């Protein structure tokens, strides 16, 4: 059973021709089997995306004034909106800062708890705990870590003679503080995937390498890491999506402040759509987010698919 399943799961590239052949023979049955998933996907993913695009071409209806067609006016307004550019820039910094750090940390932690050490189970649990906590709770905990003077971070700082620092209240440190929370929260989650992948690697490889006299770093670089590439791709896709999708900590910790220093794109969309009630402009911003995510996902699959070894 496992033998026959393995190829189709592990090699997505071979699936397509097989699917096409099946469609030719039992087309109707195939479509019927797909129908429930297709209906759900169309109703909750494709239709909203198209509707959002259409909304972005109309003005926002207010009370007795109905929406009317405005063409690309909303997009023009967006280009002139400094807060939009600021949020886009913040999001880019945020993504570039959190994704590599979270993945690297996850890999290091996975390698560490994969080894034979005492208290391994406890250590794994400790690393995974941040993932289990809801982001809202995490953000509230960190809010007090960052509190000037008597917060945990400043108290540790006091031991080394540092003064109080207003971490979330300065433009220069606020975004970095949110990034630390994100890395802390996500690394444990990604670690689980790496740990699972590491346990799939046959021990004979390590033994063979040891006989050949390969060092640990060489073994990691030439054997372990390439074998982990499918996991890395999966984790990377998830990390990128999360970088644009999770803004709970912004809501709790800074609400986009000080002076838009921590305004992320999705949080700005929320503000525009549900605080300012400018739904048309909200739809316009959403289209940008959609375009970014589509481009990133497409790029990742096209680029990495060629470089990832599926066993």
């Amino acid at each position, binding site marked *: 059973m496992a033998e026959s399943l393995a190829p189709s799961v592990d090699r997505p590239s071979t699936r397509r021709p097989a699917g096409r052949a099946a469609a030719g023979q039992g087309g109707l049955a195939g479509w019927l089997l797909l129908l429930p998933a297709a209906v759900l996907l169309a109703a909750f993913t494709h239709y909203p995306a198209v509707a959002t695009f259409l909304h972005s071409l109309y003005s926002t209806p*207010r*009370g*007795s004034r109905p929406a009317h067609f405005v063409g690309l006016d909303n997009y023009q307004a967006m280009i002139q909106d400094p*807060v939009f550019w600021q949020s886009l820039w913040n999001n880019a910094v945020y993504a570039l800062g959190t994704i590599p750090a979270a993945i690297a940390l996850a890999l290091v932690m996975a390698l560490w708890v994969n080894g034979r050490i005492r208290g391994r189970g406890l250590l794994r649990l400790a690393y995974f705990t941040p993932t289990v906590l809801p982001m809202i709770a995490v953000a509230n905990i960190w*809010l*007090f870590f960052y*509190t*000037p*003077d*008597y917060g945990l971070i400043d108290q540790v700082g006091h031991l080394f*003679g540092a*003064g*109080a620092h*207003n971490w*979330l*209240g*300065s*433009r220069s440190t606020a975004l970095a503080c949110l990034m630390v929370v994100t890395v802390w929260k996500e690394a444990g989650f990604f670690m689980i995937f790496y740990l699972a992948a590491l346990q799939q690697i046959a021990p004979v490889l390590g033994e063979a390498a040891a006989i050949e006299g390969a060092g640990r770093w060489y073994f990691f670089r030439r054997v372990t890491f390439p074998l982990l590439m499918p996991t890395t791709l999966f984790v990377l896709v998830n990390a990128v999506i999360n970088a644009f999708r999770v803004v709970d900590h912004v809501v709790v910790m*800074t*609400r986009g*402040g*000080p*002076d*838009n220093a921590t305004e992320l794109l999705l949080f700005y969309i929320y*503000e525009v759509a*549900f*605080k*300012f*009630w*400018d739904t048309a402009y909200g739809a316009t911003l959403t289209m940008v987010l959609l375009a970014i995510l589509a481009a990133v996902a497409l790029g990742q699959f096209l680029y990495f698919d060629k470089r990832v070894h599926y066993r």
Partner: protein
Amino acid sequence: MRDRLTRLLGTALVAGGLALGAGAARAETSLEFYYPVAVGGPITKIVDGMVADFEKGHPDIKVKPIYAGSYQDTITKVLTAIKGGDVPQLSVILSVDMFTLIDEDAIVPYESLVKTEADKAWLKGFYPAFMENSQTGGKTWGIPFQRSTVVMYWNKEAFKEAGLDPETPPQTWDELVAFGKKLTKKDASGNVTRWGVQIPSSGFPYWLFQALTTQNDVRLMNGDGTETHFDDPKVVEALQYWVDLSRKWQIHAPGIVEWGTTPKDFFEGKTAIMWTTTGNLTNVRKNAPFPFGVAMLPEHARRGTPTGGGNFYIFKKSTPEQKAAALTFIEWMTSPERAAQWGIETGYVAVSPAAWETPEMKAYVKDFPPAAVARDQLQYAFAELSTHDNQRVTKALNDGLQAALTGAKTPAEAMKDSQAEAKRILRAYQ
């Protein structure tokens, strides 16, 4: 399988029939009432208790109170419900969202509902300061319910330690600076261990800033909500004072100070004076480990504070019977006895002078005099910043304030930018 289906259908039909029958049998008006919770304490229990008391006296009206989250959640739910067609009949929402609700064509003015002389007298019974945010264009759109102002709390122990009279809080801007200098404490290596004063600036800095502008005798907007005065020299001067507290006088923590942790800073002795809402009174009374005082904010050109908090609104899509029933309910909830009960149990300012004349309220104030400070300050209060497209205009001001407080812009530059942005947003409403 088939059998089970028939049975299931049968049950559904019977249940449906029962529901219909129940609806037809009672000739009562039912109301859905959304309310937010914005301060600590068992608010839902208090509201449920008051509604139960109301229903006892009004068997023909059924009120279903629905806790709707924060103020922001509540207006989001209400406006989404309006767009979806399933609307509650009344709700408590921020008084400053009045223009937003009018622009969405969601609410009705109370003048269209009041009929008897008693109704009209009731409508005139509230503090005028609270009505400023409830009326526009000669009509009343909201009824004050859970309202607050900004007050000053001070740590008497810290005052004593600094050689100040623990019973005398600073009365003017200059005194605040002079006291603050004495109260600010540094350790041997020059790190500040206690600040003189703390005015929170996260989330909604405009509200606390409005205390400073009101004290400098300048209004931030016109009564129609179509114009703002952010770049007025007096506004800039007020912001300069706030910035100077940390920059020039160094008696206030630099950068943005978190609203949520400010009471904790006060309890921990990290600040000797804090400005925050009267709604925190019960919290401070319970948690401050030292004797504290509550005072009106210091004056400059005059005394002043903005009002804050939530009003009752009645929604347009209700039937005439529901609107009349909603009015009856709101009149009952804001009657002197109930307003007094609500104020005592929550810490909000009771909304009418008559409420302060009830025996319960008099006894409460006698036992705990700080409760009356907010009331006495009301005569100096201005309406909270409220315009068309309110939250967006507010953000324009908040961004400017935070830019100035973090040193990214000078107060004059920041207010000029905020004013330009507000003007651009309000162009559509001229």
